[in-house]
């Protein structure tokens, strides 16, 4: 019997790590990986509350999050390839063409 708050705190920790990674890293693939960490933390929260309320709906939503993660990874990595082809670098600070 594990308290639900432990799972929720772990989920908050993982989400925080994802947010920090998103803001501190410079490589665009590392940013995508940070987004995956955040999505996974949210999935954990969904499953915990599904367990708490004895409802299967929370687990269904994890499926949809999984699908969105897959679509995001596919499109994001295609964008990464296009970006690398154009500027030979994955540093997000280098793509500042629209900045003045």
């Amino acid at each position, binding site marked *: 019997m*594990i308290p639900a*708050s432990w799972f929720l705190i772990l989920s908050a*920790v993982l989400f925080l790590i*994802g947010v920090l990674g998103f803001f501190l890293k410079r490589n665009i*693939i590392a940013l995508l990986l*940070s987004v*995956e960490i955040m999505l996974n933390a949210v999935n954990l929260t969904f499953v915990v509350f*599904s367990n708490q309320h004895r409802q299967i709906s929370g687990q269904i939503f994890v499926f949809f999050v999984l699908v969105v993660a897959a679509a995001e990874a596919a499109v994001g990595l295609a964008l990464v390839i296009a970006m690398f082809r154009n500027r030979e670098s994955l540093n997000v*600070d280098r793509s500042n063409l629209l900045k003045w």
Partner: protein
Amino acid sequence: MIQILFFFFAALAAGAAINVLVQKHVLYSALSLILMLTATSVLFILLGADFLAVIQIIVYAGAIMVLFVFVIMLLNLPVDEDGADRLRWLKFIGIPLGLFFLFLVTATLWNVQAGTGTQSRFVGSPQAIGQSLFTDYLLPFEVTSLLILIALVGAVVFAKKDL
């Protein structure tokens, strides 16, 4: 016993997630993320979501992360160039602020949810999930297929050499 399992895999997940940020080369970050996803799937089993744990390993660690590793190896990346940081100071403000946020969330969760426990025998079997997915959530399920089709076409268009 089950608490020991929880602590071990929770520490593994958090450590692997931190390792994702610490690593210089992004390939090691991706491999560390696979470790984190696997540890999380064990936590799903502790919560009685057996089917989701398997799906997590097959789809996330199996398919999505292979896509990441494939692209990383395809691009033949230079090792992280971290020079000329205009955001260097962000580290010294962001991490304390993040920890403060974490403290607030933890304190709140600790007070509100302290009494309730999870049960490991709430089974999200494939039958129960399938039944719910194909009755109550049929329309979102179908819309999902449309989303995947759009993502597929978009990925092909973006990755093509000349548009």
